[in-house]
């Protein structure tokens, strides 16, 4: 089936429309703005039966979103970068409220310094917030994951909010063919939202109450954790139904050329496409390379990762983010998923790259595979790699010289 050419942003908006969301509180930020502009247009043109309101900050936007979800509305909103950071306090609140709203994050590196293109420090800052996280590689995945995310978030066994992530520029402003599911079929897949204990005149509730006893607080936190873990099973169920209806299949992780792979690169989001090219290139020269894509980052698909990485020689974890003083954020999570397993890989190579959307070549990723092979061959302890090409470094030096008043 051939799709319509849509940008990632419009694909996200289309997902919201197909999900028949009731309410869209919004706040602009590059590169997300096209999502809310598109929805504002559709609402004002009568194409979308939702209420759209622009708030005065992302913090308020997320508060309104969570509150409306508690009052029984299906809610969609979107942000990027600093906006994600500005919502942070409310991310924790909204997940604690068990309000299953959806937030599309269009990844963009965080300031300072200001940058517009993507890395994942923004979305990974929400890592511990209790929001489920689904990350997309293509525009088609954006639309599909929006629908799947609602199905999982609103499931009574889960009742947690979710983030669908798409990379700024590489997906947000890139047109790709997207097959939009038929509304009738979507309605079958995604029934209307049924809130649990919504705020009602006839049946008052207290939400967000304080819980001062540690044992009660611990119980609610464990409960939230249990629900988040449950989301994986619910996702798999929903995904099977989705495949039956729409013919596209999603898992918490996705393997590429993994069958006999000895060297596996773990990636997520739009740069995965580049990873696939690098794998092909390595295969052409006889290296048993493969790739593991993370679709679901919360809950973290520990078992799937361990199963697919079992018996590999060396695994490289490509982190498009940086926690200064520690390194890549996903590396320790992958290492944690593998450590206690039999047949775990011999070594794990941490790689940090593509920060602020830094253009990355298949050659750079080939160098990562070569390093994995060298680690295996020489039995050395992996040293973290921070990708930067020589030509880029000379441009850096030139920029510094200009900034310092040179020519």
């Amino acid at each position, binding site marked *: 089936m051939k799709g319509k050419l849509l940008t990632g942003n419009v694909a996200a908006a289309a997902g919201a429309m197909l999900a028949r969301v*009731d*309410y869209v*509180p919004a706040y602009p930020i590059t590169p997300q703005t096209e999502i809310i502009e598109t929805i504002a247009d559709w609402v004002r043109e009568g194409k979308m*039966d*939702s*209420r759209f*309101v622009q*708030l*005065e*900050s992302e*913090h*308020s*936007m997320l*508060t*309104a*979103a*969570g*509150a*409306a*979800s*508690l*009052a*029984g*509305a299906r*809610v969609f909103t979107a942000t990027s970068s600093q906006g994600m950071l500005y919502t942070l*306090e*409310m991310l924790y*609140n909204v997940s604690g409220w068990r309000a299953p709203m959806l937030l599309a994050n269009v990844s963009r590196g965080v300031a300072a310094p200001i940058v517009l293109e993507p890395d994942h420090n923004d979305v990974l800052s929400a890592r511990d917030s209790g929001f489920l996280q689904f990350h997309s590689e293509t525009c088609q995945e954006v639309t599909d994951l929006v629908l799947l995310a609602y199905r999982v978030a609103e499931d009574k066994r889960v009742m947690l909010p979710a983030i669908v992530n798409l990379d700024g520029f590489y997906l947000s402003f890139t047109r790709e063919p997207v097959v939009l599911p038929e509304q009738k079929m979507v309605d079958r897949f995604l029934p*209307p939202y049924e809130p649990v204990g919504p*705020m*009602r*005149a*006839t049946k*008052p*509730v*207290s*939400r*967000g*109450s*304080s*819980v*001062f006893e540690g044992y*009660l607080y611990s119980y609610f936190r464990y409960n939230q954790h249990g629900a988040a873990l449950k989301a994986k099973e619910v996702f798999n169920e929903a995904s099977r139904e989705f495949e039956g209806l729409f013919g596209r299949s999603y898992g918490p992780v996705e393997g590429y050329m993994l069958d006999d792979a000895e060297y596996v690169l773990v990636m997520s989001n739009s740069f995965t496409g580049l990873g696939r090219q690098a794998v092909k290139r390595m295969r052409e020269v006889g290296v048993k390379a493969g790739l593991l894509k993370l679709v679901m980052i919360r809950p973290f698909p520990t078992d799937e990762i361990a199963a697919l990485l079992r018996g590999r020689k060396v695994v490289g974890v490509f982190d498009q983010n940086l926690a200064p003083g520690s390194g890549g954020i996903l590396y320790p999570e992958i290492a944690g998923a593998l450590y206690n397993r039999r047949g775990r890989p011999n070594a794990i190579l941490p790689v940090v790259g593509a920060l602020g959307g830094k253009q990355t070549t298949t050659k750079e990723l080939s160098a990562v595979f070569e390093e994995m092979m060298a680690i295996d061959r020489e039995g050395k302890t992996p040293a973290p790699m921070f990708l930067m090409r020589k030509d880029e470094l000379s441009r850096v030096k030139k920029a510094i010289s200009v900034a310092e008043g040179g020519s």
Partner: protein
Amino acid sequence: MSTATRFRTLKDMPREDYFSPGNTLCAGCGGILAARIFHKVLGPNVAWVNAAGCMTVTMSYPLSPLKSNWLYTAFAAAPAGAQGVRDALDVLIAKGKIPASEDMKVVVVTGDGAAYDIGLQSTAGAIDRQLDFYYLCYDNEAYGNTGFQVSSSTPFGSSTKTTPATPAYPLGNMVRKKDLFEVWRSMKAPYVATLANSHGLDFLRKVEKGTGIRGPKMYIALAACPTGWGFDSRDSVELEKLAVQTGIWPLKESVDGVVRHTFVPRALTPVSEYLKTQVRFSHLFEPEEKTEAIATIQEYVNAYWKDAGAREGFEVKAPSARARASPSN
């Protein structure tokens, strides 16, 4: 006041109480008293939206003294929470997903820390959007729940935990109280009013008036705070009365920007009568009386009433500020 009111005397105060007796707030708390009276006027169908403060603590799982809906949001965000609840109710009723009988009055309730400081931005947003909601600020003129630190509502001359009166800083807080009434009015809230628990009829009528107005209805209630201000909890309402009689707490309202004082004292009681009742001002009297500072506070009050009188055409007899300020040493 509007001509049509169901409140002729204090005896007309509705008997229904939507806060059960017994809660975790301090004895003599002016804040919970204001919230109780407020709720009586609005009736049962209310969704309260709260920001961090003393009121937050009383809704402590698994107990709640409240018979209506409650949502705690975050310190800066209660008006945004009200936006979400209001919009959700509107859209769900419009789509026929819930019956119109489920509609509620959406009420933000916060202390002055949220209203004057950290939540002012989200309040401004809600007013800009002309959100149909009520805002009840119980104003105890400091961050009471955290132990009484200065807020932009703290009056000149008050000692707080973060502006203690010391020999080097003998006045405590040296900044004047922010005029939130004027801030909200300038943002074009259709209705803004001040309240005092001591003036119950005025209180009831103002809340009643708000129910007939669409858009943001903004209230600042003086909330005498026994623990923060330092006075005997049984004197709470008396103290609020004194605040009104000294002219320190003017009772007024603004309808579509037009201000009217709803209670005009014929003669102002000297401010020192109010100040000397509270530990937060005790440094103004001990070890020696700080006559200059007290005169300054009196001058602020006198100037306020002179200005208000000139605009509204009334005259208030004010105590002489400087008579007391003659050098005593």
